[in-house]
């Protein structure tokens, strides 16, 4: 009886939620949205750079005023590219993990990369504040290393007798991540500057893109160039994994290898994002969810849509973050939580049907 009611309710809602739009036009619209977001981000800011002069500069190499040129090339553009890459990386990581856990509430940090990143960043902040490599600060590098190492530990903990239970993976990730986040306080006690480092660290942990060097942007771009095609291969496998491990195995999918590959690629995305922008929540949770509402659950279709939406969304949010309270700047993670939190709760209420979008 109750099942009938639930099924009936599901059918009622089906009209709106199983809408499926054609892929081509959606990608075109999203690409346009990304371009508009980038244009907005280029022109807006503490110093207004008129769009005409930017276009003239790029197309006809008409010189800009020196300060405008510096702001454009060394401050705004790298930041915009970084924001787009971080947004795309977090969203695709979210998509991969939601598919892997067969659960729409998984996010890019779900198997513990955030805890490792926090500890790594604290160590970098307190012990090696001067060290940097290719433009990456010790904070970013150790955060990257921390998140990758944590995932390796979590994965080996969750692996029992040659297979991984997905729930165990989730719980181990949560436990290890929480443990590491809190142990970062021990490192912070060693801080000789009595709190100065903590403030820098806090702003980093709240997620903020900052102004990266072009070398950083290049390194991250190269990593993403490897990770995106890899996730396209994994997307088809995720569709098959939706039938459950045993069925996928029956169909000839090497479930355990695919799972390891998803964890590696997803964690690479998350760690790359962490190294550029700290911990930015909600993007990786909401964007795949939203894309699924519009496109249906086919991961192959979701992949480009998720990447583009994530990129445009973070570019816009980051622009807002540096303009709403100008000249001071809001960490983008805080803005994301303020926008994303309520939106996410709204989605949560909508998808109570049990199988999520």
């Amino acid at each position, binding site marked *: 009886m109750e099942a009938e009611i639930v099924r009936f309710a*599901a059918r009622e809602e089906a009209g709106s939620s199983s809408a499926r739009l054609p892929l081509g036009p959606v990608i075109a619209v999203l690409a346009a949205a990304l371009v508009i977001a980038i244009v907005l981000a280029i022109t807006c800011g503490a110093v207004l750079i008129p769009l005409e002069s930017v276009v003239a500069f790029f197309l006809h190499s008409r010189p800009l005023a020196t300060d405008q040129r510096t702001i454009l090339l060394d401050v705004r553009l790298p930041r915009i590219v970084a924001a787009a890459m971080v947004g795309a990386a977090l969203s695709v990581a979210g998509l991969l993990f939601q598919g892997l856990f067969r659960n729409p509430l998984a996010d890019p940090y779900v198997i513990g990369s955030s805890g490792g990143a926090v500890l790594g960043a604290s160590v970098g902040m307190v012990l090696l504040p001067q060290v940097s490599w290719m433009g990456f600060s010790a904070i970013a590098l150790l955060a990257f290393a921390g998140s990758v190492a944590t995932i390796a530990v979590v994965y080996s903990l969750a692996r029992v007798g040659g297979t991984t239970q997905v729930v165990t993976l989730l719980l181990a990730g949560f436990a290890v991540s929480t443990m590491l986040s809190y142990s970062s306080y021990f490192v912070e006690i060693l801080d000789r500057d009595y709190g100065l480092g903590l403030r820098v660290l806090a702003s980093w942990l709240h997620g903020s893109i900052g102004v990266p060097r072009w070398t950083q942007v290049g390194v991250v771009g190269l990593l993403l160039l490897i990770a995106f095609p890899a996730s396209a*291969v994994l997307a088809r496998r995720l569709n098959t994994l939706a039938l459950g491990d045993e069925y996928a195995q029956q169909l000839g999918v090497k479930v355990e290898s695919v799972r390891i590959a998803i964890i590696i690629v997803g964690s690479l995305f998350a760690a790359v994002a962490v190294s550029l922008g700290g911990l930015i929540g909600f993007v990786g949770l909401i964007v795949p969810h939203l894309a699924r509402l519009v496109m249906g659950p086919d991961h192959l279709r979701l992949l480009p849509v998720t990447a583009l939406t994530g990129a445009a969304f973070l570019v816009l949010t980051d622009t807002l973050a540096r303009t709403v309270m100008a000249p001071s700047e809001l960490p983008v993670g805080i803005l994301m939580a303020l926008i994303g939190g309520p939106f996410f709760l709204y989605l949560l209420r909508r998808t109570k*049907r049990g199988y*999520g979008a």
Partner: protein
Amino acid sequence: MSACLTFDEVSFSFTQAKVLERASFSLAQGSCTALIGPNGGGKTTLLRIAAGLLTPASGRILLGNHPLASMRRREIAHEVALVPQQLEVPFSFTVEQIVEQGRTPYLSLFGGLKMRDRHAMERAMELADATPLRHRVYNELSGGERQRVKIALGLAQEPRLLLLDEPTQNLDFGRQMDLINLIRSLHSEGIYIFAAMHDLTLIPGTFSSVVLISPFERLRQGSPEEILKSDLLERAFRCSPPRPSTLQHSVSTPSEFAL
């Protein structure tokens, strides 16, 4: 005539319980066989072994003339499809998207669906009478509809042998009849059927042979007339014959199947 599936002295046990002990039987080419036995007697396990998802402790399984143990997972998937009792799917996948997954054993690592795959999907949905459901969301289907979609998913593998795990479970009488008709029509299309069946009344007339598996009896194979005998079923299912006073209103007990 050679067999399409042969179990030769196959033993299998989970850590606690023995499920199969030196079990031997074979399904003839073109057969439509029912697998019966008490709950927890190992029907599902036997089907999973036949599909190559579980490896027996000892013994040999032949698919046609090939030992199952020496075949690659994909090769097995081209020959055998197992339709499970339950198929839980997250998100709102449509029937078409689900059936598409049945083509996985034919796809290369980077390749997508080709015309041949599309044809196989169409034919699978048509055979299982699931074509009208193609754009519906799987999670919103009724039990009978889901059963048809699961069978279409299995058929998309273009298997020679279709293993069905209690296909009529939880279906009302009308849907059970639909499913039996579906099994018959699949069989007439040249697909060999091996189905775990709960409801023994559905077996005569549809299945040409029966395999009985029970913890209390050794495995037996025979025609429905040979296997569905009250004394044998009472031993295998460990049920006592109904007392005369309750006989009239009792639910069907195996003794009613004395043929």
